[in-house]
């Protein structure tokens, strides 16, 4: 299956300092970390290239200061990259006019912010209808669409509340609703749940997955919480000090961490709950064992079966044999 890239970043750099463009040019657009530091520049993003595919949830993960927020802001052109190109549906974002950019934002992009960024002087419905208001849509029409959104994010009955009358979780529901008001194709979420309590965070993550399963947007999701990344992501980008360290599925990261930095994140995770059989089985289409497990089952669910039977056959959703898995493999996986 060929995947369609919705957004492409090509060699994006972002440096802060005096005239960073000339500085980059002087060093053939590839200065070393030391040169950057020595000449007094701050490296926010270093040579980032990413493709974001249609309908996927791409999570950008990194500690604070790793450049993830800046990268997302370059994608939405809230921040101008120093050099590099960004294509959104084949439009070169660096070349379009201010007016075209506004049009794209009005119809194709939505963004959720860490601290909600609700307008304190507007009620829930006025906040959610705001993106429609700036497009010049009349009050009745925009409030009708806003009401649909309010139902989607589960805030019925609170449409006339002011933000400060809502709890944190409810406020972020408004933030999510507002970002969805224009039915965007590309949905940015910048650490949307970081400011919430752990329990509410979990609830909101589920809520987010529910909404996504209904809407199927292309999503770029920032977080510094690896558990959250694993839970939500189709693919994860790990960033460190402005560099993209690794791009891959959650399983890739756990099984084949690109470096120590990634490994440190993945080490203490309950891997048997995160990884599926597929990622540790031996590929073997001819195995003949009677007991079967599905390749997409998480490892912890099949441990007992394997341990009692010694070895089991792995099949895919069409009941086709794809491999086998034995006691030693499972033990090694569990205990190292």
């Amino acid at each position, binding site marked *: 299956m060929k995947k369609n890239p919705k957004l492409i970043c090509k060699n994006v750099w972002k440096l802060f300092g005096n005239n960073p463009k000339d500085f980059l040019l002087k060093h053939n657009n590839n200065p070393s970390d030391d040169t950057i530091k020595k000449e007094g520049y701050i490296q926010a993003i270093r040579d980032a290239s990413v493709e974001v595919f249609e309908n996927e949830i791409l999570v950008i993960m990194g500690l604070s200061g790793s450049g993830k927020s800046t990268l997302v802001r370059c994608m*939405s052109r809230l921040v101008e990259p120093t050099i590099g190109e960004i294509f959104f549906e084949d439009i070169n974002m660096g070349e379009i006019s201010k007016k075209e950019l506004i049009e794209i934002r009005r119809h194709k992009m939505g963004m959720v912010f860490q601290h909600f960024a609700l307008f304190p002087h507007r009620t829930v419905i006025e906040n959610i209808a705001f993106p429609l208001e700036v497009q010049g849509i009349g009050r009745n029409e925009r409030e009708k669409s806003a009401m649909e959104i309010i139902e989607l994010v589960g805030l019925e009955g609170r449409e006339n509340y002011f933000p400060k009358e809502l709890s944190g979780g409810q406020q972020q529901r408004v933030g999510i609703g507002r970002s969805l008001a224009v039915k965007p194709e590309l949905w940015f979420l910048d650490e949307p749940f970081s400011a919430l309590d752990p329990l509410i965070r979990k609830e909101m993550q589920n809520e987010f997955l529910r909404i996504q399963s209904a809407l199927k947007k292309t999503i770029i999701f920032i977080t510094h919480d690896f558990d959250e990344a694993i839970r939500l992501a189709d693919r994860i980008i790990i960033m460190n000090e402005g560099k993209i360290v690794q791009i891959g599925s959650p399983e890739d990261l756990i099984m084949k961490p690109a470096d120590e930095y990634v490994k440190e994140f993945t080490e203490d995770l309950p891997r048997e709950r995160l990884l599926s059989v597929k990622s540790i089985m031996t590929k073997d289409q001819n195995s003949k064992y009677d007991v079967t497990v599905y390749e997409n089952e998480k490892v912890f669910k099949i441990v007992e079966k394997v341990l009692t039977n010694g070895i089991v056959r792995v099949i895919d959703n069409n009941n086709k044999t794809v491999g086998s898995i034995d006691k030693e493999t499972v033990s090694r996986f569990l205990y190292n």
Partner: protein
Amino acid sequence: MISNIQNNKKITFFLLFIITFILYFYGKEIASYFDAKWIIKYPKHYIFPISKYTSLFVKWLMDEATFGIFSFRDLTRFIAWLIQQPYNLILALISKGFLQGQGQDAVEILPPLSWISVITIIVSMALYTKDKILVALVAFAFFYLVIFGQWESSMVTLSSIIIAVPVGVIIGLILGILSYKSEILERIISPILDLMQTVPVFAYLVPILVMFGFGPVSALIATIIYSMPPMVRTTLLALKSIDPQIKECGLMSGCTERQLLWKVLVPVSKPTLMVGVNQVIMLSLNMVIIASMIGAGGLGYDVLASLRRLNIGVGFETGVAIVVLAIALDRLSQAFVNIPARKRKKNISFFKKNFNIITLFIFIIVIYLLSPFLPLIKNFPENLVFNTSLFWEELVKYININYYDNLESFKVTLLTYFMLPIKRFFLGIPWPWFITILTITGWYFGKLRLAFLCLVLSLFIVVTGLWEKAMITLYLCGSSVLIASMIGIPLGVWAGVNARANKALTVFIDTLQTLPSFVYLIPVVMLFRVGDFTAMLAVILYALAPAVRYTAHGIKNINNQIVEAALICGCSPRQLLFKIKLPLALPEILLGINQTIMLALSMLVITALVGTRDLGQEVYIALTKADIGRGLVSGLCVAFISIIADRIIKSGSNKLKDKYGMI
């Protein structure tokens, strides 16, 4: 090593102190020994006549400068005309009525709004805030104006406020927005605002007087210029402190630049902006009396005229009227800041929605139509007007007859043992040494930059030949600030540790700050007549508030865990205060003293009216002679003194904060 540096510092301080005292006691002898009189007195023929050149420049500006199609004079005339129109309209509406013809032959075409209508409008505004105490306060204030016969004058004053405030707010808002958008403009505007807020008002009354002539328009322009700077600052501050995510959200929603400004940035910062509006109102009221020096009528003129005639009773009565008006307008505007956003009611008709406004409108029209037939409506019946001026006069007479000796001995004691030594000290130190000390202090707190600033600004005062007057200003300011701090800081500490004291003091301090500066002169003149002592008392009263407020704030804001830690260590309340709270609140207290100095300096110019011989007097003389150069130069000197004090104290406070890791 560290203690070594500390010791060196101490020795240096000690030495400087000794030298200062030697020079103070023997300066004259030393000067005559070396035959260098210039050490004591800056020679006259080296005075650089900046004031003369300034006056010449303004004369050229008024007489000859043109912008091609129109001259500078045309421009000022146009501005004056522009302001005159709405002012005339409002004035006619609430005070004078619409007249045809000039002067004595004028015929009233339409009467002004009745006092009943004006009070109804104001009280309805108070009702809108749903604050019952406020309604009572506003009603009381305006009925006071009617019953005590201040109505006509206060409506003239109110008209100028009604014009000056919106104009000041709009200009301030625009300048604030522009400087938010352009960093270059911000850098240009910021020092100008600094100067505008430190140059005493009188100083720029002079050029306004020359450019726009004597009359209410000049007074309005002065009021606008005086009251606008805080609006610019608040706007800039409000816009800058908006959460960047809010701005990004606006952008991501596809706002154009204009939509971003008017639909996101300005509404989001509205609460802060309203604080700026309140400031503009307060400063406009503060100008009421001062502006009457260049032609504003109304309450200000009444106060000024009675003060000049030493007609204490009338002055006091009118002063109270200004205070009452100021408090009412201040509280009203503050209440509008705090109105909670209300839920929008859906599906109700226009009539129902605006029921209150429509009723009010109909009421006013009915009253208006009735007013020609019912004299009670047109004018409050004169025989019901109270006149208390006699009472006040008698009271003052009584006090002076019975307590004259006590008051006088109090005054003489403070003068001889407190004020005069300070005065001699400042006048005794040779100016080159004083400048050296200032520069060293600047160096100590802010390195080269501050040292240079201190040097240049103080040299300016010397070469313009105003050193001695500046020293008198310094002595008056110093002794007032000293006493204000001695009263204010303990009060602040008290408010900081005791919640009930805090509540009471807040009301007291708020009221003190609401009163126009001029008003403070009235009671002290009543009791102590004119002179330095009277001036000092007025300055202390006016400048007391920040010392209390900042100290209380500093004490209250100490991290609670630190207090708990000290208590666990076994501090007694006294130890807690002196070992923990006061040292930690010191940076904040310093800022309070700084504000006190700023207020004292601005008040000193006004106290020139009671006969001080300082820079304020210089400015005041310039005003009466319409001598632009003289007024501007001596005004700048006052501004420079306050800038030097401000920069040194602020860097000191920051140094401390930095040391304690509070920034």
